[in-house]
């Protein structure tokens, strides 16, 4: 499904005349069909493939959007601090969506997925964090605003080191004893504009 979604999202720059929501919905619908076909091939119910979706499409100048179903979150900085790292004040956020209960959320695999597809337009993004629910608890305040301390620590370090060392350090932090008091999945993707 990730591959199908990526293939669909790659077409964004050539479809500027189509309203974003229509285009994004079609991209997710097609990716979901791929998941349905895979479930049929495997002889499993689609519910075995339940997943939330947090995705971002960004053009080289930092414009684009976040596409989001369910919990997890995205935080995108839109300016730089004096030392060249991202400034998280005024960052754009796509916050988690839960049901009444914290462990109830919405999945792309549910029939009602389109009612829960949220699109957040972005302009001039300098750095972006995409994360699942476990990491979102560290990166956002309860009101959904980004926690500058967390976002800055991640962004400043990853800007300084090479890709492999950065990935190892991030994985070590998210697997630390303190981080794992929260048992939820902790996937975090960081990207910056060059």
């Amino acid at each position, binding site marked *: 499904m990730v591959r199908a979604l990526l293939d669909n999202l790659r077409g964004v720059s050539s479809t500027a005349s189509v309203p974003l929501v229509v285009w994004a919905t079609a991209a997710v619908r097609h990716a979901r069909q791929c998941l349905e076909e895979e479930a049929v091939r495997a002889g499993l119910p689609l519910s075995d493939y339940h997943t939330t979706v947090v995705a971002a499409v960004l053009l080289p100048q930092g414009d684009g959007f976040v596409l989001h179903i369910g919990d997890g979150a995205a935080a995108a900085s839109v300016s730089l601090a004096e030392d060249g790292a991202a400034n998280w004040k005024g960052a754009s956020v796509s916050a988690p969506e839960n049901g009444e209960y914290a462990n109830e959320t919405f999945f792309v695999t549910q029939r009602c997925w389109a009612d829960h597809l949220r699109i957040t337009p972005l302009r001039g993004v300098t750095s972006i964090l995409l994360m699942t629910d476990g990491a979102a608890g560290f990166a956002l305040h309860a009101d959904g605003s980004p926690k500058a301390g967390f976002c800055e620590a991640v962004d400043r370090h990853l800007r300084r080191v090479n890709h492999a060392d950065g990935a190892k350090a991030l994985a070590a932090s998210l697997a630390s004893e303190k981080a794992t008091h929260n*048992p939820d999945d902790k996937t975090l993707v960081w990207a910056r504009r060059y």
Partner: protein
Amino acid sequence: MNGIPGLEAQLEENTSQRTPCILVLDASSSMDGKRIQSLNDGLMAFEEALKADPVARNRVAVSIVCIGRDNLAQVMTPWTDAMHFQAPTIYANGSTPLGAGARLALSELESYKASLRNMGIPYTRPWVLIVSDGEPTDADWEDAAEEMRTAAVDKKAIVFPLAVEGASTEKLAAFNAPGKGVLRLHGLAFRELFVWLSASVSSASQAAAGTKMQIEAPRMITIET
């Protein structure tokens, strides 16, 4: 491998979600003697088990309603995070107004959920454990049982009526969703009961919604449907 410098200090969850767990405990005069001693012993074990569990101590919130004294239902322990929970000592006295206890538990749950919502703290489905060794003595207990039953059916709460020896399992079952039954405690194994409850509610606080519970009840508890 070292992590990201300075990140350790930032790994505080914004607001740890809560799993509310309310106990409705029969402290009527029929519980006097060994029964109430075992129940108090069990509550101590509950406190120890919750505090020893790194997830439960942060995520589970506990409240205790007692029924009996002055023939009333009363809040013995207001909502407390598990890490601060101190097991109360309960004294047996009075009748068994189980209906009033159920109503008080539902009202405590609603006000606690409202306060969590106001603070932006997410929560999972609450647990209600109703422990009795007798049968309800209040006149309108059936209406209260229906309110609790509706809460269970509507998934507002997960209800566990627990029958101590001498209890009317039929009347206790009226407090739960149809077919969900009643737990029966054999002997006075309250300690095992509360260690199991701590492990189960901890597991529930981590599970995705709809996940089947994997923790088996100890042998001294059976389920009667």
